[in-house]
């Protein structure tokens, strides 16, 4: 496949995953807004922005955690920043616009149905702003937008020919996912106290909703309850999101998808082999280093998470030099 086409699909995967993740984060935060105390809402926003490594446009006013009115205005501004802010390159609208722009450039390798889905999703939010979605129920908007991303991947799953194009779409999607989940868990550690002794609250009582929402964002609540516990033990929960091979939003799952995709596209050239090795090391981090950590040592946990995130970034560079922008001599070897 033409390198530029593969690169386009890779970025479509990344941008859509990014857009979808933001939809999930904000939708979940709105759940919190419904009935939680103001300081808890404030912490929710903190986690959200930290996880995305974003400072709201113009900075964030000092939070006044006692003031209900402030809290609502704040929510409006912050949601706007993550959804429509033109200068935020990772806003939901920009993510979809970027995905569409990439698709437009490689449209000859994008299925007609896929293109139509992406084009319509973008046109849907191209001309609206935060006031439009605030008028009614903002959650509807985020659900609808996430749905359109899900539809995209659903069509891709059912229509796409399994050539390099498919695997680069997967690579982009899952490298992005791994990085986003790493960011989210790290932010959780920074914003909330992590202490297993305080855990053990019944999942239904709502006592530990900050952790419940982490599961919700990762679509992991039901499976956690089914396969682990009705009690949110912090370290078990983090372990679930990092290392569970069957949870589609776990880092372990994303890493397996990355390895599989790289294996499918690899061509034996030296740089390609290097990218494959890097993916193997990422998997090894989760399979071997992670289980050996001391779960009570937050710094040790954060260090491994940091290494995983770093590994993803390097993998991105490796893929770029191996497949997209290799030097001519390197290309001739194949």
């Amino acid at each position, binding site marked *: 496949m*033409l390198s530029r086409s593969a690169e386009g699909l890779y970025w479509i995967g990344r941008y859509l995953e990014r857009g979808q993740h933001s939809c999930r984060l904000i939708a979940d935060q709105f759940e919190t807004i419904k009935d939680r105390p103001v300081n808890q809402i404030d912490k929710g926003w903190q986690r959200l922005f930290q996880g995305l490594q974003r400072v709201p446009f113009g900075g964030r006013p000092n939070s006044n955690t006692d003031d209900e009115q402030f809290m609502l205005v704040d929510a409006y501004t912050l949601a706007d920043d993550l959804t429509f802010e033109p200068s935020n390159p990772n806003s939901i609208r920009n993510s979809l616009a970027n995905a569409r722009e990439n698709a437009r*450039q490689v449209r000859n390798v994008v299925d007609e149905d896929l293109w139509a889905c992406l084009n319509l999703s973008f046109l849907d939010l191209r001309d609206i702003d935060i006031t439009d979605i605030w008028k009614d129920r903002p959650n509807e908007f985020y659900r609808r937008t996430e749905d359109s991303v899900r539809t995209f991947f659903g069509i891709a799953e059912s229509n796409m020919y399994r050539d390099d194009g498919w695997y*680069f779409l997967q690579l982009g999607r899952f490298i992005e996912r791994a990085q986003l989940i790493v960011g989210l868990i790290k932010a959780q550690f920074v914003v909330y106290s992590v202490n297993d002794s305080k855990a053990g609250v019944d999942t239904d009582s709502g006592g530990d909703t900050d952790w419940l929402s982490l599961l919700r964002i990762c679509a992991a609540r039901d499976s956690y309850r089914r396969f682990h516990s009705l009690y949110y033990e912090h370290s078990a929960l983090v372990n679930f999101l990092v290392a569970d091979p069957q949870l589609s939003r776990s880092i372990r799952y994303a890493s397996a998808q990355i390895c599989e995709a790289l294996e499918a596209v690899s061509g034996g050239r030296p740089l390609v082999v290097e990218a494959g090795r890097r993916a193997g090391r990422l998997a090894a981090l989760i399979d071997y280093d992670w289980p050996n950590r001391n779960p009570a040592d937050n710094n040790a946990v954060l260090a491994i998470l940091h290494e995983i995130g770093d590994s993803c970034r390097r993998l991105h560079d490796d893929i770029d030099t191996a497949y997209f922008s290799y030097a001519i001599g390197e290309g001739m070897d194949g």
Partner: protein
Amino acid sequence: MAAEQTGANGPAEKSQLFAGYKINPAFYDEMFDATGAPREHCRELWKVLRAIPHEEITTMQERVERSFLNEGITFSVYGEEGAQDHIIPIDIIPRLIAAAEWESLEKGLHQRIQALNLFLADIYGPERIINDGVIPPDMVRGCPQFRNAMRGVEVAHGIHVSVCGTDLVRSHDGFMVLEDNLRVPSGVSYMLANRAAIKTTLRDVFRRQKVRNIDGYGRLLRQTLAELSPHGDADPTIVLLTPGIYNSAFYEHMFLAREMGVELVTGNDLVASNGFVYMRTTAGLRRVDVIYRRIDDDFLDPLVFRPDSQLGTPGLFDAYRLGNVAIANAPGTGVADDKSMYAYVPEMIRYYLDEEPLLANVETHLCRDPEALEYTLDNLDNLVIKEVGGSGGYGMLIGPHATTEERNAFARKINASPENYISQPVLDLSCAPCLTDDDAAPRHVDLRPFVLCGREIRLVPGAFCRVALTAGSLVVNSSQGGGGKDFWVLSE
């Protein structure tokens, strides 16, 4: 039948699509004869259309336009912000042509592309037509589109022009060629998109009218290009070279690449090395055999043409000259569709084929000739003046529609460099009914069929029909308010 009943009732008659249709006898009408009766081959369509309530037709029209936007069938206008999202407005009333008439057009187009290819092979080769005094040497060598680099280059099968989009117009005297587009003619995707949309919208009448199929264009184009491959292999690697997404015809490039199942590349995706051209793929560099280029000569290879071009691939022309890659259309074809060279095409047909031209030319005065210059300047108010190298409706003056100041300004330009201008009579372009806000009204139309030339000449029975959507306007270019229509070639 519902149609007849509607027509018989007074009030219903008023809301009927063609109730207020006024035929201007000065122009040939594609659907109605001089008495106002529908032409025989249009009867079926006319009956169906007049039976549809006006609101319903308007809804159909809106639905088609929306589908174009949703599917991203768009073009851009140079110099406009957010230009990527224009659609070429489509009028849902198709234009029809009877089988026999199409057949004679087809013959004329075959003849013309043959002569043009022979001409190009000649002027970059032995120059017989110049030596025999048929065409003045400076007209050829002095033409800005003449490419010195092409002299003596062996072009596969002598085919310089593989894809030609010929602009045809019709007056009361019949069809005439207005322009041969031999460089990078566009519009074929709109022919296919218009067809897809109208076939869905008017499916019953489409069936009944026995419209000939045009779906094979992508296959024919691929076949034509494959025949140019210098390596003679059965399945050569073909690519479509585009300037990129900001080009006004990008949609078409993408569309054709997909139709043909070939890669869509930009200059940066190609690498010329050791006299061959490669494309950059995820599995390393892969040799390219045929390039269907949709960028101008100037931007193909900065080493040979424009050195400041960012779009091209350095070394590409060398690989071409060595015969290791084919480029379609060949560089330098523009010399044959230059507006002054146009006047000589009938002569070319006689010279190379020893035949009389089957398709007429529009009477053309070359201002380089002093008599023609004088005539042109004396008759500015009823002539169309065109810049020799202009295209897309830019750089032209329609005398009768221009103000005195505009005419005077043009006269100064013509006097300054007469060889840059030609003049033609204002054409009585034919009209076809178009949907307007109130009902159907006549609008001027032209026609661009696409002729393919590989080992043989191929032509799908269809064309991009362009419409000047503004009442009275003669400018059909999509960059200047023109639209499109589906064009139905009927079988026997």
